[in-house]
């Protein structure tokens, strides 16, 4: 590593430690930011010599990164950005903090995938899904798929592991046909993780024709785009590998969506030479991910926190939540997106029959939505009021980003 990069890396670690000591978050953003100021190529320097996997997509990337790091951990030390700091500053900080490691598994914000591919030259990139998310500032879905595709074409030697169930991802992962490709791209490895959300892929990104669906299958009615045959598939409570062997997967994380994330983690780890039989037990060791899925006892209630940031992840959260009193909390601050329109993309009907409480900065937006949806609810001003409004037992909490952080902070204060 050049001297400038060494200095930058050391200063970055110190800044992160100072930020943590001052109680200002985990310091992974500020540390990386300072390091990149001193050496703009610091991320590339820190990445060189490591076998790296990147994980990107709209939903599930923090959890999948955590599961993948656990699986690759069979081989040795793995650097990872486990706090969800998923932009280049966070990657820089994570690699600097980890010191020299043979492996790294990095979660990447979907907007930064091209830049991070360029800087880190990963061995593998896993593409999970693309759906609408904070559209007041994020790029729309088709645009994002286009950016991914263009970035992957520039790096044909990277192994792509992609979701066969998401038409936008399949299109992004499939390079356009060229007459004389200079390097034949590595074949894509497809996994099937299931997908509940279909409302961003009714129209083919290649030709604009309608996309038809039947059972697991989907195909464009106007061109070549269709669901590829997946090599890694979730089946019952396990995962089938490309050899056809079924591996039972016992997770502490709830929901079918996390079985899909486990399948992805096994597929990525296999690219590093990890056998699924060696990796599955490590997946079961993951109990919570940056506070998500964490269970906290409070006043005789067992509170479980689920994060749901956009329509697709709300559908998954309803699947994870048990039939129990449920608190929904919605904010619309900068990290959440300022627009609450997406509430009408979510069908809250699965909550009928449960005791539903609502809170958050934008509880009234949610109130109008639930009213139209025919879901009875009770508005509470605070998390504490929510706790006292439900009987002893389980309380499921589903919240979007800053609402989730608010509730975590409140639970940390009292516990």
């Amino acid at each position: 590593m050049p001297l400038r990069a060494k200095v930058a890396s050391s200063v970055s670690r110190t800044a992160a430690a100072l930020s943590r000591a001052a109680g200002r978050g985990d310091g992974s953003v500020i540390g990386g930011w300072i390091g990149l100021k001193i050496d703009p190529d610091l991320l590339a320097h820190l990445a060189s010599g490591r076998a790296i996997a990147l994980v990107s997509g709209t939903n599930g990337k923090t959890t999948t990164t955590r599961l993948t790091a656990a699986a690759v951990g069979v081989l040795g030390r793995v650097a990872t950005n486990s706090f969800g700091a998923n932009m280049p500053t966070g990657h820089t900080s994570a690699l600097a903090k980890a010191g020299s490691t043979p492996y790294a598994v990095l979660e990447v914000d979907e907007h930064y995938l091209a830049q991070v591919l360029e800087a880190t030259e990963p061995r593998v990139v896993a593409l999970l899904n693309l759906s609408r998310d904070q559209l007041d500032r994020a790029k729309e879905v088709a645009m994002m798929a286009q950016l991914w595709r263009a970035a992957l074409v520039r790096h044909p030697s990277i192994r792509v592991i992609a979701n066969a169930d998401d038409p936008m991802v399949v299109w992004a992962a499939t390079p356009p046909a060229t007459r004389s490709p200079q390097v034949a791209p590595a074949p894509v490895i497809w996994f099937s993780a299931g997908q509940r959300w279909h409302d961003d892929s009714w129209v083919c990104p290649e030709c604009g024709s309608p996309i038809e669906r039947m059972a697991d299958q989907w195909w464009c009615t106007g061109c070549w785009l269709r669901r590829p045959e997946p090599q890694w598939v979730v089946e019952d409570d396990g995962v089938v590998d490309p050899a056809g062997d079924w591996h039972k997967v016992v997770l502490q994380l709830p929901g079918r969506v996390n079985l899909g994330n486990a399948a992805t983690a096994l597929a990525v780890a296999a690219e590093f030479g990890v056998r699924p039989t060696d990796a599955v037990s490590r997946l079961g060791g993951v109990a919570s991910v940056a506070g998500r899925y964490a269970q906290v006892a409070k006043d005789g209630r067992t509170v479980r926190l689920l994060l749901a940031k956009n329509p697709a992840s709300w559908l998954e959260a309803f699947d994870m939540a048990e039939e129990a009193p449920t608190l929904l909390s919605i904010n619309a601050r900068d990290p959440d997106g300022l627009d609450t329109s997406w509430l009408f993309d979510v069908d809250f009907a699965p909550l009928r029959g449960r005791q539903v409480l609502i809170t958050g900065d934008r509880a009234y937006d949610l109130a109008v939505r639930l009213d139209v949806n025919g879901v009875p609810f009770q508005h509470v001003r605070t998390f504490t009021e929510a706790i006292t409004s439900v009987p002893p037992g389980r309380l499921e909490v589903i919240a979007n980003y800053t609402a989730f952080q608010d509730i975590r902070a409140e639970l940390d204060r009292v516990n």
Partner: protein
Amino acid sequence: MSTDPAYRMAGPAGGESTLRIVWIYPDLLSTYGDRGNMLILERRARLRGMPVECIEVRSDQRLPISADIYLLGGGEDGPQALGAQRLIADGGLRRAAEQGSVVFAVCAGYQLLGGSFFAKGTKCAGLDLLDLHSDRGPSRAVGELAGAIDPRLGLPPLSGFENHGGRTHLGPGVSALARVSTGIGNDGNTEGAWRGKLLGTYSHGPALARNPALADLLLRWAIGVQQLPPLDDTWSDRLRAERSAALAAARQ
């Protein structure tokens, strides 16, 4: 919820007294919770005891021409241009509008009711049902949108959220829906447009969630009555008050 509209057209299930709401091309024009407008109209009609039929018509299907209310949502440039082409080729919306059906359009759907709009840098022909033209503005308009509505419509102020790159120029054949107090709307001064029973706005997605009186106006137009029994609008009233207070606080 959606079934073959041709079957629904032929079947006697609807009958004269059923309010028929068509959501046009949800496969193309549905970006920001646009489904909400259909759900809200359906709910407010049912609470008054009206039978309602909601029909979602995909862009590869024919548009029924005898529905009472047609809804157009927002979309990205590509789907917007494609939606306009298919609607022009279909011809059904023009015939429905000429027969006196209600049309409510938001954002990209609003633009394509005009004579022309820009998508992906190209000028595209619209349906020419409203006398207006849209082009690209100097910046994207993203944020809260509010303003006093044309007094002839007798509605409380508009409250909504906008996210668009276009600017819309109104001709003499339409009236502005509102005068902008927060946001950009058509051009920073006026917002939306209406003529007869056609109404468009840049207040995107589930615009009717924050504007229940506007939802009732569309229902009154469709049924041909001056008054509807009032509903309990506690939550939308609180939402409007909260948004209005947030805008006032931001201005200070």
